[in-house]
């Protein structure tokens, strides 16, 4: 057992904050990604890495990524796609829901390596930002959100819920949406929104 070295007591002056700022702005990141497509590397990897090619929201990507990384941390910390949220990191809240090959998964419980050769869709990939997905519009219409933190996960789960055929009644929607916690308590709006979007999907 080794005692940690005594670091001494440090106090900071205004100048030191200024310097810290200057240093930080230079701290660039080198890319270790063997990307054959546009996969912007936000950080260098450490430890054992894993190569993978995947399609994210329709764009082919190749990355060399920490074998321990979850799909969620790949999206957020490597690819800067912040729409997918972390609410527990344990598969208990649904905030990180994305689609892998069209099926909803908790991206925090999915190793990044598992999406090799698969298709991933996130909240950023369901509309072009101008025309909304009918589910997004329905969430606005029914105020199916408050803080908006669980919302991307709710919407991804909701789209899958309709696609699975689990939106035939309010009871069924409630049941099949119960893996996505909304602590703000927007559940009634969420059920209303899914009913609306499911009807629209039926018509088209």
């Amino acid at each position, binding site marked *: 057992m080794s005692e940690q070295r005594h670091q001494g007591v*440090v106090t900071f002056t205004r100048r030191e904050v200024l310097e810290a700022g200057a240093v930080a702005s230079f701290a660039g990141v080198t890319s270790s990604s063997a990307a054959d497509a546009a996969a912007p590397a936000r950080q260098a990897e450490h430890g054992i890495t894993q190569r993978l090619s995947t399609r994210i929201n329709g764009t082919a990507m190749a990355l060399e990524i920490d074998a321990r990384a979850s799909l969620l941390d790949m999206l957020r910390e490597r690819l800067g796609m912040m729409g997918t949220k972390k609410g527990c990191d344990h598969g208990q809240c649904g905030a990180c829901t994305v689609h892998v090959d069209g099926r909803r998964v908790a991206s925090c419980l999915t190793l990044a390596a598992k999406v090799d050769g698969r298709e991933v869709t996130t909240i950023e990939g369901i509309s072009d930002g101008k025309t909304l997905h009918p589910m997004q519009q329905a969430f606005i219409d029914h105020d199916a959100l408050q803080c908006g933190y669980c919302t991307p996960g709710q919407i991804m789960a909701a789209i899958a819920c309709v696609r699975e055929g689990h939106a035939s009644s309010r009871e069924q929607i409630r049941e099949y949406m119960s893996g996505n916690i909304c602590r703000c308590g927007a559940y009634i709006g969420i059920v209303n929104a899914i009913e609306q979007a499911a009807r629209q999907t039926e018509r088209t």
Partner: protein
Amino acid sequence: MSLERNPDRPRIDAREKVLGKPLFAADREVPGVLHAMTVPAAIAKGEIEAIDIEQAMRVAGVVRIFTYLDFQDIRETPATRGGGGNVPGYQPMKRASVRHRGEPVALVVAETLEAAIEAAEAVKPRYRAAAFSAWHDQAGAEREPLQVDREAGDAPGALAAAARTIDVTYLHPQQHHNPIEMISTTVSFESGRMLVMEGTQNAAAFKFGLAGMLGQDPNMLDASSPYVGGGFGQKNNLQEQTALVARAALLLRRPVKLVMPRSQLFHTATYRPFSSHRIRIGASVQGKLEAVLYDVEQQNSRFDQFEAAHGQHVSRMYATSNWRSTNRRVRVDVQSPGHQRAPHEHPSSYATECAYDELAHALGIDPLQLRLLNDADLDPITGKPFSSRRLVECLRRGAELFDWGRRQHATRSMRTADGQLLGLGVAAGAYKAAVSPALARLRIRADGSTHLSITGQEMGQGMRSVVAAEVINVLNVDPNRLTIDMGETAAAPQHLTAGSWGCASAAPAARAVALRMRERLAELVGIEQANGNVHEALARVRRTSLEVEVAHLGPGQPKTVLDRMSRGLPAAAGPEYERFTAFSWIAHFAEVHVEPTTCRIRVPRVVSVVDCGRVMNHRTATSQVRGGVVWAFGAALREIAEVDPRYGRVLNNDLADYVVPVNADIGDIEVELLDEPDTQLNISGAKGVGEVAMVGATAAIVNAVHHATGKRVRHLPIRIEDLLEASAEGQPYLHESLALAKRLRDQQPAARSEAMLRKLIVGLAAGTPPYDDMSPELAELTRQQLHFLQKDLASLGAVRSVTFKEVSASGMDVYEVEFEKERRIAEVRLRADGRVDAAWINL
């Protein structure tokens, strides 16, 4: 100008939110950011003898591991853990000691999150544990002296003289906020300034409080929290990790980000503490309240000042001219509790509104009538009028929407069509209408854009929609090009947004700044043009932009309060003002269904009617009320932190085991907002809604459970086993499930089942079955089949013996019957009322 009724408008930031665009604290891109992870203390109290970091340092990518040796110069100031504490709070990692379970003892910083997590697990602290007490009933818990918080008249005297009294104690468990956005801290440096990004309801506390802790000039620091992924009071303060991350970033001269794992937040962030509530009520036989004595004990940490006084709103609910409320804190070795949505109002309304229900039941009075009968004209504590009080209207309107008239007084007297026990409950609530100072700066440009910088934090309650409404109501601006900065100390001073004062503070500030703008425009372009399209008006006089600023104060507040506010210190006025007392009011009606065998409780319908002053946005306010009711459901039937006093640990410290309401739990919640402006309080006529929404709703559910089952459960959450136990008190229908469980376990037949079986066989063989001993359904079936049954049974001859074999899973007592000619298996099941509801014989 009279106040306009706000039209139906979507939430202003709903579009961004459905696109996943808002950048919450941990979502900002910070080049070169390092990832941190904390190592939580594995003891509840004691000394740190050593911290072995050797193995952890070998994890590839680790940059540095900090321990208490690095953070000793962080100061504990009155700002520690938020602006509010009366004495310095507690900052972990300053010393070689531990004061509560789970506090950080080391901070690992690494190039990647994965490396930080792996290394944090490899850090090996060695402790010398000390004795501690982690629960209020353990030896070593320190009971502080009793405090009287509110008093009017002579409550003890009036209680002694009252014709009817009740004396009951309700227990409220420890609960945790669990906003879905986990608390995170990111510190970066931009143009030589430190930027702190943390989801908070109090950005100002970060600018000023954190600067104080770090010994920095607040002017070197900005705090940014434009969106908060749910606050509920847990994000009122600086967190235990905030200063650690900031100090680490300074020492490393690199930006650092830490997302606290939820399991650790159960031990580092605030929570609603355990409390017990004794209520003594004296009343006349007609139900007139004559005295209320209300005594609370609430658990606290050893080192913080979270208030235990619960009397604020409950002393104003009814005409209780003889009132006394007291409280005391019980200090144990845990982290500090804090404000959780309706921090005192929810537990106190739960306890008192259930007690009033008990009183009504004991007196044979309708609980709704009891409340109407005791309405208060004046504030019983101060004798002043209320700024507005439409509680009676809330109760009457709610009763109408809910169809309260169908309620039968007796418990266990109503059933659903499918045979479930049906219960209807009512309760009411209030929440102080406080107002905090706020500053608003409005800039209108000729290019068609408008920008508002304002005091206040958006955490989902809809603050952006509220302030936008007032700007749009007053000025003809392009609403699609209106941008709003909130939660940014660089844009405007920020206040602690809590206590439901956000709306009533920001809305009038927004209205005031818009009115000021119109005046300025009128000076510039004339009244007529100022009322028209303001962008065009500016263009016409060749002004690119116009900016005005207004500071808005609560009623009677001095200007000096602005300074307090902008430093993140609580600066709100109310609910007691010079001329009046101000509260928001609410009535809740709940319908519960209790499945008689499993005792599963469902809440298919709640009706809530609210007096929250003028409604600033109908959708966001309705959502707030629904959210409050969802929370009340959680409190009534789901949420409890299971603390193991042997270890000082919350055992269920994640979302799988700390059960919060999910979609399948929630039925219909019908909300009506009275929408009557309270113009005494502020120029927008707005009162708060986010917390009053929850107040009383738990009691409505608990009262409905009592009405359904006859069982008065005086702790939370109510669980199936609480109702199964009810059967022991001789309630026939619920009795069945418990009796069945016992019979199954013991494999013992029901007392009279053999005799009943014999009687059945004899009766059937003779063609005269004992129909009176059967359930109507079985009797009907027997009539249809009697012809065959009689023939077959008669052919077997008389019964020689009956031998019990087992109790089947469906609760049938299985017998072997020896007839003169053959043996047969026969089964019979008796209901709690002694009748046979199922019988079967192998013929």
